[in-house]
């Protein structure tokens, strides 16, 4: 699909608005505290909008709808988990974390356990989690620009990288707060209007909801196959292939039998009007399978998959450095709690719309189910369903929202990376923060181009959640509530959890394990590691801390009082970097 000038204009407008608001915010940024924690002056309303704006990445904006279109009911667990993570954060982390007075997650580790070695380990983990999270954002930007404007894949990461680095280098946390709050409302608008428009169209067309939705095209559709895919054909009538079918060169040949067929790269698939769309092998092909829960997201052991997604997303948010750092910008613990609650409300509102769009994508653009590039569904659905000027306007709006999603999350992650690197590797001055931001923003660009990105956006982000849930989450939860945690225990837990989940994620991104090995358990554990690695990390921290009991910090009572006693009693101390 080639881009319309309208879409290009909308993209440009979103970028210009982002940079302009960033520039406006720069006027308020002077001290290191401004750059790191916006001088702790952000109220719950602004902060909640900023957190949601930053949190709703491409994985939520594009990925959730794509996964729902592809896999059906079980994909609904991703948005539920992404929201529920904030309940965990609210219950166990928000207020004490803010009251600790720390300014980054590694700083919290040093505050709580008094060990500069642990601080370094935590810093490494923060950088790793952020990079795991940044890479899919950059990749998504490449895919999105390719889908909507037809640009080469490498342009997306480079463009997003440059804009984000510019913004972060210029204004740090202060200006990012304004930008991210704006981006939440932009994203909500950009996804709500197309979703509601499609809802209207759907009721005008059919007038009933909830029946099994068969993926059927309404007009003749041609799909270009770019890489070899195995598809499941439920009903072969009206499906013709030119190129390579099952390894044999063919020209405009009808697929004869239902079942699995391999389409070679460079083939084109033509669907007559009313034909049932073939779907990627391993995804539900009939409407009844798609609408039922319990079928999983491809591969075996669907119940384990769902439980592991629940563990990763419910606990992962507690370990996301770019989310945690935003809670340090609240003025006090009470505001931090109210922020978390407001975020739950804002996210619940937002996720209604990707769910709708996912359902309608299956209806109106089923061709995305063939290539497996379901992430493009949101971008393609409005134009295909409406056509004409209305369709183009909606497509332009969605494109603007998508670019906002890439920019918001990437800048938040970059602030975290830069904050950790600047204060722990460099000397913590404003200049160091800027150097760190440039380095941290450039590293993921080659990584995002090197890996092929075979996983859907939501799933690769889900893997970053698994790493966060297996490392920083136990550090924070045990650090805040358990006096027995020691620096050695925490470090061992971070290393064990980080290695276990990191290895799984790397293998999964590199292609995963074959489903047939040992009944599919290794494959599913690599693809959904959290249910194994999170308990492992918690257990390691607790066990090693028990063994090294004597090395607990001496002023533990003072530290716990600071974290848990309300600010009114005047015990809080705001930590600031050395520089």
């Amino acid at each position, binding site marked *: 699909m080639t881009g319309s000038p309208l879409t290009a204009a909308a993209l440009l407008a979103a970028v210009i608005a982002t940079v302009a608001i960033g520039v406006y915010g720069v006027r308020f940024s002077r001290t290191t505290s401004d750059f790191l924690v916006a001088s702790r002056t952000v109220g719950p309303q602004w902060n909640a909008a900023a957190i949601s704006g930053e949190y709703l990445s491409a994985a939520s904006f594009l990925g959730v709808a794509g996964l729902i279109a592809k896999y059906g*009911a079980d994909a609904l667990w991703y948005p539920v988990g992404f929201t529920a993570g904030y309940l965990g954060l609210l219950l166990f982390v928000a207020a004490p974390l803010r009251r600790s007075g720390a300014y980054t997650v590694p700083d919290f580790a040093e505050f709580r356990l008094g060990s500069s070695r642990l601080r370094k380990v935590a810093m490494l983990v923060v950088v790793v989690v952020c990079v795991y999270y940044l890479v899919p954002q950059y990749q998504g930007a490449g895919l999105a620009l390719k889908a909507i404007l037809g640009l080469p894949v490498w342009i997306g990461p480079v463009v997003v990288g440059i804009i984000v680095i510019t913004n972060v280098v210029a204004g740090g946390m202060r200006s990012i707060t304004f930008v991210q709050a704006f981006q939440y409302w932009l994203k909500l608008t950009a996804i709500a209007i197309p979703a509601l428009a499609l809802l209207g169209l759907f009721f005008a067309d059919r007038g009933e909801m909830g029946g099994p939705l068969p993926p059927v095209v309404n007009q003749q559709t041609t799909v270009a196959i770019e890489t070899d895919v195995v598809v499941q054909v439920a009903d072969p009538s009206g499906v013709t292939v030119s190129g390579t079918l099952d390894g044999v060169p063919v020209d405009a040949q009808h697929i004869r039998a239902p079942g699995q067929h391999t389409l070679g790269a460079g083939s084109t698939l033509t669907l007559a009007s009313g034909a049932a769309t073939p779907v990627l092998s391993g995804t539900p092909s009939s409407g009844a399978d798609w609408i039922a829960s319990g079928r999983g997201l491809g591969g075996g052991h669907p119940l384990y998959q769902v439980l592991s997604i629940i563990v990763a997303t419910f606990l992962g948010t507690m370990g996301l450095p770019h989310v945690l750092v935003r809670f340090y910008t609240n003025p006090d613990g009470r505001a931090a709690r109210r922020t978390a609650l407001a975020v739950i409300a804002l996210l619940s509102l937002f996720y209604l719309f990707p769910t709708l769009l996912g359902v309608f994508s299956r209806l109106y653009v089923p061709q995305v189910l063939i290539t497996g590039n379901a992430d493009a569904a949101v971008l393609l659905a409005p134009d295909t369903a409406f056509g004409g000027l209305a369709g183009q306007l909606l497509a332009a709006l969605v494109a603007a929202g998508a670019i906002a999603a890439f920019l918001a999350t990437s800048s938040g992650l970059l602030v975290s990376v830069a904050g950790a690197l600047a204060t722990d590797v460099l000397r913590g001055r404003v200049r160091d923060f800027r150097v760190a931001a440039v380095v941290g923003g450039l590293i993921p660009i080659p990584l995002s181009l090197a890996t092929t990105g075979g996983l859907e956006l939501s799933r690769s982000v889900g893997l970053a959640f698994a790493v966060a849930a297996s490392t920083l989450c136990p550090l924070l939860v045990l650090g805040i509530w358990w006096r027995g945690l020691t620096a050695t225990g925490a470090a061992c837990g971070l290393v064990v959890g980080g290695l276990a989940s990191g290895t799984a994620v790397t293998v999964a991104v590199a292609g995963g394990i074959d489903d047939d090995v040992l009944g599919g358990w290794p494959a599913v554990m690599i693809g959904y590691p959290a249910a194994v690695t999170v308990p492992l990390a918690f257990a390691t921290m607790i066990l090693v801390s028990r063994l090294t009991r004597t090395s607990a910090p001496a002023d533990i*009572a003072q530290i716990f009082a600071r974290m848990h006693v309300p600010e009114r009693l005047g015990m809080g101390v705001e930590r600031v970097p050395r520089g």
Partner: protein
Amino acid sequence: MTSNEKPQRERVVLAHRRGARMVRTRVEVQEQTQVGDALVRGLMRAQLGLALRLAVVVICAVVAIPLLNAAFPDLAAITVLGIRLNWLVLGGLVYLLLYGVGRLYVRLAEQAERDFVGVVDSEP
């Protein structure tokens, strides 16, 4: 901007009321005497207990969804207002549960803190 006549930045901390009468229990908490430590432990226990209880409620409700679905697949096929039950629960009702529990927690946690400050600031 007239930056040259800008006053020096000052840090204002409302909690330190210098000259105000300090209540003895407040000093005990700040100085972490045995009494103060016991008070802080009590507050922590209350807050953690509250958080854990609410978490258990949410976990039971959430984990029950896939387990119930695996045990009784027919349950999800019920339609309410034209929408299948599994979609209605996961696409809408779960969010209401999450927000409701969060709201309850914020109210009760702030209540616990007010009680704590009340105990600390009351002259015995």
